[in-house]
């Protein structure tokens, strides 16, 4: 049994202008100890996917279809009451810039202990001990529970947030841009830490980012999202070496590669889709250089083009063959 299987998940937001199909039928799975990268433009539905899996959607949002099987149990159809047992305990999220959410006038240890008490019902003394051991886990000396946030560097604060996300020994941890806005050294430190925890606890990990350059060296698999759908998913190396979707191809070319020559990236022409009015056919068609008539009428299905490599594009062979 897989740790997590997401099948045809659809999460929509209902707002007065209409329906935002933020996540529109995505499927993937995650094994114990495995890391999956979720990448795509701003607004393509990455955070909404994460919030759906952790069941912490805002009130406008609703899972309208699909299954989220955590060790075989479907979370998608659970009631609010049933789910509360799983939330935080099994799936936890560490958000971008979360470190800024630390309370400046409260000691670090007390803040971690608060999370522990809330989710695990421990007493204060036990919770503080747990807080110290969680700090040790993220390579910060336990005695620093008595420090205030301003006595910590940015990287240490972000590690505190990871410690909090670990408070309940989750089976899956989701990092939503956990290292964005941090410099390379701190970023590397956090990624090392996540890798350590992943192998130590056999934890599944989902890394959400729009920085593709991070994913190759961090994740086993990469899923590329566009307009609420996964348009390409494969083993990390295959995403880079056997790129088969025109959007993935453009996205990769947006990142400078110091091992190659200095070339200003071409960028992705056109504008991101209006999520309220996804056109008929392939959502990427208006921006695609390989577009043909079929693309404007028929939305391509995700099809297997190689070992564990899925793409939704009518003309994937053009890209795959360079």
């Amino acid at each position, binding site marked *: 049994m897989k740790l997590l299987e997401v099948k045809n998940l659809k999460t929509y937001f209902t707002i007065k202008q209409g329906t935002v199909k933020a996540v529109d039928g995505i499927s993937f799975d995650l094994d114990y100890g495995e890391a999956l990268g979720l990448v795509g*433009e*701003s607004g393509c539905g990455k955070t909404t996917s994460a919030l759906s899996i952790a069941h912490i959607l805002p009130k406008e949002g609703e899972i309208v279809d699909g299954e989220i099987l955590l060790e075989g149990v479907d979370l998608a159809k659970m009631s609010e009451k049933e789910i509360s047992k799983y939330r935080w305990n099994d799936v936890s999220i560490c958000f971008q810039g979360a470190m800024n959410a630390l309370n400046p006038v409260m000691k670090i240890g007390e803040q971690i202990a608060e999370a522990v008490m809330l989710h695990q019902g421990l007493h204060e003394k036990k919770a503080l001990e747990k807080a110290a051991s969680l700090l040790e886990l993220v390579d910060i000396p336990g005695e620093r529970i008595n420090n205030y946030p301003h006595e910590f560097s940015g990287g*240490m604060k972000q590690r505190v947030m990871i410690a909090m996300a670990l408070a309940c020994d989750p089976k899956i941890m989701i990092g939503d841009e956990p290292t964005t806005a*941090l410099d390379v*050294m701190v970023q*590397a430190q956090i990624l090392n830490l996540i890798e350590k925890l992943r192998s130590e606890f056999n934890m599944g990990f989902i890394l959400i980012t729009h920085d593709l*350059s991070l994913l190759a060296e961090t994740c086993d698999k990469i899923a590329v999202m566009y307009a609420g759908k996964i348009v390409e998913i494969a083993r990390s190396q295959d995403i880079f070496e056997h790129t088969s979707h025109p959007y993935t191809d453009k996205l990769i070319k947006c990142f400078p590669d*110091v091992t190659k020559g200095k070339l*200003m990236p071409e960028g992705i022409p056109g504008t991101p889709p209006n999520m309220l009015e996804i056109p008929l056919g392939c959502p990427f068609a208006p921006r695609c250089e390989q577009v043909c008539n079929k693309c404007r009428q028929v939305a391509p299905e995700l099809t297997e083009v190689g070992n564990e490599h899925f793409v939704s594009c009518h003309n994937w062979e053009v890209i795959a063959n360079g």
Partner: protein
Amino acid sequence: MAKIFEVENLKVHFKLKGTFGSQKKTVKAVDGISFSIDEGEVFSLVGESGSGKTTTGKALLQLVPYTCEKMLFKGEVIENSKVGLKNFRQKAQMIYQDPYQSLNPRNEILDIVSEPLIVNKLTESEEDRLERSRIALEEAGMAPGEDYFFRYPYELSGGQRQRVVIASSMIMKPDFVVADEPVSMLDASIRTGILRLMMKFREETGVSYLFITHDLSLAWLISDKIAIMYLGKIMEIGNSDIIIKGAVHPYTKALVEIMPKPGQARLGERNVLEGETPDPTDVVEGCKFCSRCPVHMDKCAIEEPPMIEVEPGHQVACWRAMK
């Protein structure tokens, strides 16, 4: 090559108000740095958070009090009078990191873009203001410009907002722009458009940029020269290929080594520097990087290394680089 900026031994120290009874502390945000920027050059400042990048940019733009041995703009001292500063401010502009915060949400795009013209009383008529704003917006990739005049920032995407910011700083035809993390809040796809726009302006107008970023691969891509900062000091300056392929300073080397490289799987653990960066209020004797340096010597903790030229245009502050 003519220089747009020459700076020697620039220092910006902030005195913190001590809580009652405790000693006053000083943050040495910038602690004695020297560099020069050629006309038409892109000069990047790269370093971790708190290393003093923004403060350096603000000092050049005369926005924070500083001391120095020399600061020349186009070969001349920046006149510290009202008129002198006014003239200077027309030629030197700043682009801030966050397009969501740097635009006043209550102002229409037209007013935002033309603000520098109004402030500096540079428009002859309303028609002139409209025309120049339209051109500025269109040059920034927002055409037709008049379609955006009466919109508000919240009605634009992040990339469009950053274009408005750029249009507004370029409307004065500046000679020098400090761009403080101008694309770090933006998506990869939008980012490229903004970078291309900045480079297009450089080609057309010869503007020089001080480009502030913590992204070394981005700095490499767009700049002629890179300076690596750590705790208020410059550790190494060189042309961008030298910094990536022939770095000498152990800090630069460490940064280059752990840079994520697209498409490359990693083998083994990332070599993260030991320890934490000292508090900027601590007094650090010797080399500021010493406490985290994998190859430090006894001397490094005692005496600060001077900046030396290891080859033309490549300077390093490290005792190990001395021969």
